[in-house]
């Protein structure tokens, strides 16, 4: 039955398959061919041997990821930050998108959207200096213009751990909300307005129509984006966790993620095998997580699953 379908589909829709071909070829060249380089994760790389001819050493490269006291800390940080980003991100970006959509004036909507989007165009290096200008101990805005005039003790942010979970979360959303709410905004704009009209005739308020119409209509997008985000839960935004805290050692317990650990550990040794092993590990875990999240979604509501 299925085979027949494929044959019929090919015959019937062949122009579409041809249209998809360039994309598929691109995908193949860019994503599948380089995968052969994963073999590096199992080798002790040497220049004369090259990528495929170096000495195979089995799983030794993976050892450095797990055989240390900080393995727990960096895994915990990576997971907790990402979970926070996913959950809070959903709330913040959907709310922002909805509020933007509710603006009736086209001009003010454009202005607000640009203002929200702007931080994501800044390089993380610039962001880190902006943060530094606010937090620095001797010259920073908070210490010099708020705490000291109020007669309070200045805070040395770059050596106190307790502030950083909040600072990093704030910086993340300040920077990323603009881009993440675009998708939702497009989705919300595409909802048939007659649904809202009908609801308001029936006496539904703004909030009611938000929960009863908007949310159900964008659930497929929410699910897809969340599954994709879950797949990256073992990866972290390197710039955010390394540059924004200015690589300060005293707060490493709350800023160390798997990516920064790998970077710090390999900065001096430039060991290609270990780097490849770390990336490989993150991808495998990410793949499994996508797979299981999707299975879970399938169980709950079949039509919303990605595959």
């Amino acid at each position, binding site marked *: 039955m299925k085979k027949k379908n494929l044959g019929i589909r090919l015959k019937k829709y062949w122009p579409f398959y041809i249209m998809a071909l360039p994309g598929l070829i691109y995908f193949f060249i860019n994503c599948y061919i380089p995968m052969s380089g994963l073999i590096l994760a199992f080798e002790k790389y040497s220049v004369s041997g090259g990528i495929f001819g170096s000495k195979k050493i089995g799983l030794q490269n993976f050892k450095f990821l797990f055989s240390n006291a900080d393995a727990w800390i960096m895994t915990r940080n990576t997971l907790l930050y990402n979970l926070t980003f996913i959950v809070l991100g959903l709330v913040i970006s959907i709310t922002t998108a909805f509020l933007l959509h509710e603006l009736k004036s086209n001009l003010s909507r454009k202005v607000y959207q640009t203002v929200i989007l702007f931080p994501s165009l800044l390089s993380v290096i610039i962001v880190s200096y902006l943060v530094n200008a606010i937090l620095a101990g001797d010259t920073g805005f908070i210490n010099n213009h708020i705490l000291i005039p109020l007669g309070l003790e200045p805070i*040395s942010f770059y050596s106190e751990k307790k502030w950083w979970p909040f600072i990093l979360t704030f910086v993340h959303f300040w920077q990323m909300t603009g881009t993440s709410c675009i998708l939702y905004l497009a989705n919300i704009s595409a909802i048939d307005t007659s649904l809202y009209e009908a609801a308001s005739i029936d006496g539904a308020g703004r909030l009611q129509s938000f929960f009863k119409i908007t949310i159900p209509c964008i659930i497929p997008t929410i699910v897809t984006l969340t599954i994709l985000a879950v797949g990256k839960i073992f990866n972290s935004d390197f710039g955010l966790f390394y540059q924004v805290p200015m690589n300060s050692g005293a707060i490493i317990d709350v800023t160390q993620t798997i990516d920064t650990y790998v970077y710090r550990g390999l900065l*001096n*040794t430039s060991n290609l095998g270990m780097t490849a092993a770390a990336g490989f590990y993150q991808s495998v875990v990410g793949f499994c997580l996508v797979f299981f999240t999707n299975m879970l979604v399938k169980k709950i509501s079949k039509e919303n699953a990605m595959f």
Partner: protein
Amino acid sequence: MKKITALLMMAVMLVSLFAGCGKSAQKNNEKPENTSEKTTEVAKNTESAKVEKIKIWVPTSGKYDDIDAVMEKVNEITRAKIGVEVEFCPLQFGQWFGQYSLLLSGTEDVDIMANYGGYLNAYSQGACLDLTDLLNEYGQDIIATEGEYLKGGMIDGRQYAIPIYAAYAWNMGLIYRQDVVDELGLTDQVANVKTLEDWEPILAAVKEAKPDMTPYVMNTGATASNFQYGTWDDLGNNYGVLLDGGKTSEVVNLFESDEYARLCKIMYDWNQKGYSSKDIQTQTDGFGTLTQNDAAFSTLGQTDFNTKFYQTTSIGKPIGIVMLGDAVGRTYNNVTYTVMSNTKHPEACMKFLNLWFSDIELGNLIKYGIEGTHYVVNGDGMAEYLEGQDANSCTYHLGASVSNTVAIRWVTENPDYVKLLNDANSSARRSVALGFAFNTDSVTNEITQLDNVRAKYQTGLETGVMDPDQYLPEFNKALKDAGIDKVIAEKQAQLDAYLGK
């Protein structure tokens, strides 16, 4: 269903086949192209039977807009003398450190590689060609210039790198603003400073008199640790050092030593008293930039016979130094040149390096460009920019050179540099470990973990932001857990073997 799986399998297999094909086809294609290129080259150059082309990558802080014209002149010399054509690929220093690993990976077109900050990474990746025989055959001028200091490029008795001929003997020292000292009438007091403790009253006086000038800053910002250039011989990576600067060969744990605790205490004291910034551990600018803007007074750094002169001219403010102890010839060798192990022209590379070391004309060309176009020689026999030109408007000034001591000196350099350098290098005490290179292969995992422990504590402790009474024991415990004892034992064993014990 089964058929679909079979189809899929076939697709996968085809894919891997293609992937393999692509690679090998590429390689096969490359070779004939190269040879055909070469044959046309040979046909062109009737005067020499065969010209080998090599590529050398160097970092620079200078200009290289006119590099094609300069290379033409360079190649006239190299073609005639050694039958080699060389292409220089300079990168700005900032870019360099990002590109270095990539260039080392062996996938780029590189024959000779400059290594800043040691070459052990290159070696452990198998990127360094064994140069021992080539050096003896084609490198006589290099051997004559460097003598015993060639050991700085040796591992297990084989020559893998050619160190540049620079000041080998140095020690940790204070680098400070001489004009500020003179202005505050502290000149005599500074002349009597022997230790870091003696330095405190000076800092106090500067803090009092110059509120906008931070009395103490880190040398290069947070990119290197505060005690990077210590009084000890760091044997390559600070995990296990020779504490007395290499008088004996006992490898000890630096971080547990009294000396280290003493330094951390001083820094903590200075930070508490406000001689250094509260944010010193996230300092981004180096001492040079800060003091140019009168924002910093002193720092700790590597000092040798030329530091005072060099810093004064490069910073543009009067600089003074206090060396904390005698200068010692170290294991540590910062800048070396290596030949990539996958090069097709090993002989040509060595011939070129040797010529670069010894040929005045070649040295000048590569350093300063073409005489009359990019520089002129003044009455004192020193090179300077053309009238009306400066570092920004001159179109070529690479500056990079394998320590070509025969080339003319730039006008801002010490006129007696070569003589002083030779004197300093030949008279200095040498560490017993001079020429020892630590092979980290068996302890890579430990070192990766130790580096992470260091990232957490080292800067904080060495800048005095962390209280050593509380954090130094914590740091040492973390180092122990990460396996520092194993690394030190391995280092001791290798050093003993090197010394023939």
